[in-house]
């Protein structure tokens, strides 16, 4: 790519070391390691059931891997929970949409501002001036995100009533509202048409470019993955079978075999 990046790709910000995860007798992930560099767009690809979502769930603390560690900015994190990771500056979206269905789009995105909300319930109940000030700032930031994602016209609609593609956008918005340094996107473009996908790519690249947010995404559309990511890691049956730039991955025989199948 010819253009000059505002945020140069830097040192590893997130490192996954020798993670193994199994459910009962089923091994979802086996001894997997890879890293994510600061400010890059990193894709995780692989056939169905390769352990991609499980990987994100391990990074984010929803699953507890039996073995292995996750390090953030070179520091190993003990007892990972979603809450701790959020506080460290890692936010995410979910494969099967995990929005707050009965709340409006604006309210959903406002929940993403939780870690920038310091006032307690008593102060909120009494509507002290500092609560109003904080709420104003949070709302301004949320409105910014809403206009960035071009969803102003639906901001007061309960998200449960929105079509799938829009819900995916809202979920991205909620992750953006956290102002995290890393965002994990679990299939952000699943079930979208070409136009919606193009929009989503634009948003992801724009956020990465303008804010320097590190993006880790799982995606099935190879064209999209090869276009937008800086580096790709390929999982198959819970193991890393390829790791490198899109060009390297395209030339990797193991990856080709995994995707196209191989004669035995």
């Amino acid at each position: 790519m010819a253009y000059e990046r505002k945020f140069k790709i830097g040192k590893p910000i997130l490192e996954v070391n020798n993670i193994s995860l199994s459910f009962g007798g089923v091994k979802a992930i086996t001894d997997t390691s890879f890293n994510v560099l600061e400010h890059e767009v990193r894709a995780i690809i692989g056939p169905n059931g390769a352990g991609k979502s499980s990987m994100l769930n391990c990074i984010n603390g929803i699953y507890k891997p039996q073995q292995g560690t996750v390090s953030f900015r070179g520091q190993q994190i003990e007892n990972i929970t979603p809450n701790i990771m959020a506080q460290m500056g890692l936010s995410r979206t979910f494969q099967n949409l995990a929005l707050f269905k009965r709340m409006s789009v604006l309210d959903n995105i406002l929940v993403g501002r939780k870690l920038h909300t310091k006032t307690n319930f008593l102060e909120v109940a009494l509507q002290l001036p500092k609560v109003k000030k904080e709420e104003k700032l949070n709302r301004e930031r949320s409105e910014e995100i809403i206009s960035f994602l071009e969803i102003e016209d639906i901001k007061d609609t309960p998200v449960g009533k929105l079509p799938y593609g829009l819900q995916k956008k809202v979920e991205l918005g909620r992750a953006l509202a956290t102002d995290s340094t890393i965002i994990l996107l679990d299939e952000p473009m699943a079930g979208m048409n070409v136009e919606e996908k193009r929009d989503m790519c634009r948003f992801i690249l724009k956020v990465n470019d303008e804010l320097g947010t590190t993006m880790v995404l799982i995606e099935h559309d190879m064209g999209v993955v090869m276009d937008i990511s800086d580096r790709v890691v390929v999982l198959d049956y819970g193991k890393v079978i390829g790791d490198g730039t899109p060009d390297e991955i395209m030339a990797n025989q193991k990856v080709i075999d995994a995707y196209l199948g191989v004669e035995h």
Partner: protein
Amino acid sequence: MKPVFMTYTKKDLINLAVCMFLSILIIPTFITTEYWYTSILIPWLCLALATIGQQIVMGYTGQLALGAAGFMAAGAFAMFNLILRVPDLGFVGSLIVSGLIAAAFGILFGLPSLKVRGIYLMVATLASQFFIIWMIDKFGWFKNYDSSGIITAQDIVIMGKPFTTPLAMYFVCLAVTTVLTLLAMNMARGSTGRNWMAVRDMDIAAESMGVSLLRTKVQAFAISAFYCGVAGALFAFCYLKSLEPVAFDIKLSFKILFMCILGGLGTINGAFIGAAFILLFPVLLNAIGNNVFHGAIDATIISSIEQVIFGGLMIIFMIYEPLGMAKLWENLKVSLKSKLSSSGTKSLKSSAQK
């Protein structure tokens, strides 16, 4: 449209003004029979307050809890003991401390919500209902060793002035309910309420956004129990006056649950609508029984009919309108408004044609 940075819109302020006008001026001017104050308005306000408590934990935070009456009992007996033993605290001070004592129970019995959910949590919270009533019954100290087991609530004295007439007690209830309702609305519409609803709608996502499940759930239980505790104290001091722990049995908990569901889960005004419906409906049925059938229908049958209708309504609302009567009211207003505006444009057109 709601201005972006304001908690209250003009419409809210108008609503508040209308409610205050009705409750402070119109009701006291036009309703003079004591019966309305002692048997309907005062319990309505108290139970609506307890229902707000139930709403916070169930409607907003999505935790199925059943034990509101237990917390009410804690509040009521705490109030009795505080006024008896720490008279310096005064009525308002005692009311707040009673609420806090109930809140402490709320935290204790809210802890299971971290591990169990749904119907299992409901069973776990039943423990609060039975434990609190049992504790008050078991230890005579709570009832000041009254041999009959019945306590008589002291007269309400605020700043040296007695509030003993039904009208005066109505104003006490009204003041407390208004303040607490406004505080509840502030919380529900602010960041606190958003955290509650996030936990209700998708707890894993809420946690990934940095909302602590432990904190949010326990907070909701504590605030809910505080509201129930204050409501219980008012219920005892303004309505029941002489009471025993059994007054706060499981039936009352269910009643509050019904008020919450029929009124509309996750709404504050639904608490008032639900409480009014559950309180007034039996009165209406009795009136029909007496005036239409002239007592031909037995009173026990009427009270059974009442149960059947409540049960039926619960099912109907759960299936067709989970947001309850508050939502029906909202829909009614919207359709009325659109009808009015369309007939308005019609008449404009017809006058223009003339």
